[in-house]
């Protein structure tokens, strides 16, 4: 009888611990693509931590020099996200200069982003002009548009 009570107590403790941890660490939101994970503490990796202490006016937009993938790849290593110092929401869209859309994100709150982007289609070998569109919205409602930005870069497909 005592043994049964102890076992039940152990499972109860594990369950409580599990739910507490679940509450602290928000599960990441799944992207619209096939794979890919949006993390909650995404950072540009180029921000100065000292500057990050205060929220400054304006919206920070990440920019890129280039990206590389192999023909047939269904993902692209590209750090797309909403810098943590921002106070707006962002919808990110990866597309080619000809308008071909490769990925569209759900609403990214400040500090959310991806390390690897799932692609809607594979690309043939070659060099492409690519763009990440950052459509900014009011964080409060997630819909009211603000000024937006586009970061152009060269995408190399081996």
């Amino acid at each position, binding site marked *: 009888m005592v043994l049964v009570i102890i076992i039940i107590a152990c499972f109860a403790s594990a369950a409580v611990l599990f739910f507490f941890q679940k509450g602290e*660490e928000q599960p990441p939101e799944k992207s619209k693509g096939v794979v890919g994970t949006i993390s909650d503490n995404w950072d540009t990796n*180029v921000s100065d931590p000292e500057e990050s202490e205060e929220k400054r006016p304006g919206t920070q937009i990440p*920019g890129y020099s280039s*990206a590389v993938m192999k023909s047939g790849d269904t993902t692209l290593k590209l750090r797309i996200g909403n810098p943590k110092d921002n106070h707006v929401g962002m919808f990110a869209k990866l597309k080619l200069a000809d308008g071909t859309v490769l990925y569209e994100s759900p609403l990214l709150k400040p500090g959310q982003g991806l390390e690897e982007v799932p692609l809607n289609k594979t690309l043939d070998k070659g060099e492409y002009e690519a763009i990440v569109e950052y459509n900014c919205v009011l964080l409060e409602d997630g819909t009211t548009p603000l000024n*937006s930005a586009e970061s152009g870069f060269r995408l190399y497909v*081996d």
Partner: protein
Amino acid sequence: MKAKKLVTLTLAAAMVAASSVSVFAAELTDTDSTGQTEVKAHISGNAGNVSYIITIPDVIDFGELTQPADNTTDHFKDVNYEVKATKIDGLDAQTQSINVYVRDQNASVGGVDDFFITNKNNANLSFEYSVFNTTDPDSSSALNDNNMLQAVGYNLHSFDTEGDTMTGVLRFNQNNIYGYDITQIAGDYSGYMVFFSTIENK
């Protein structure tokens, strides 16, 4: 003794179950890019990573616009805005710069390429404003005085140094609303700018 062993095993199982949640969470929030090495060998050390951060105005507010009593002289309402190269990583400043362009969200090459604010309740009510990339609009021409030649927009500024800030002016001539029935045009207006940035050779 058997009972003690079972309790120990059960406790261990419970601990493993709990810690596996932490590991799972840690993996999901890992911010290290694992593609850096491969990319370095191919193009540059920064492929796929964030190379720079440009800070743009999220909103520019002209405030309350007033219908002037006459239109014989200009009635400008000017608002400053800033674009900043907040962070630059690995740019060869001798040969490269980050070029920033700007356009109205509805602008197109060969089509309507000016900047507009539009009544939120009546899309047919739009008024033009001018964009300057200097703080002295009286002695310079607006970007949109010329035709927009590239789809990405008007050339706004080139940055090659971290921390550089460009301050410009948006100018609304309130003569634009002169002569209208104010009850017909009153309301909230908004317009959206699109800032395009890219690394280019000097």
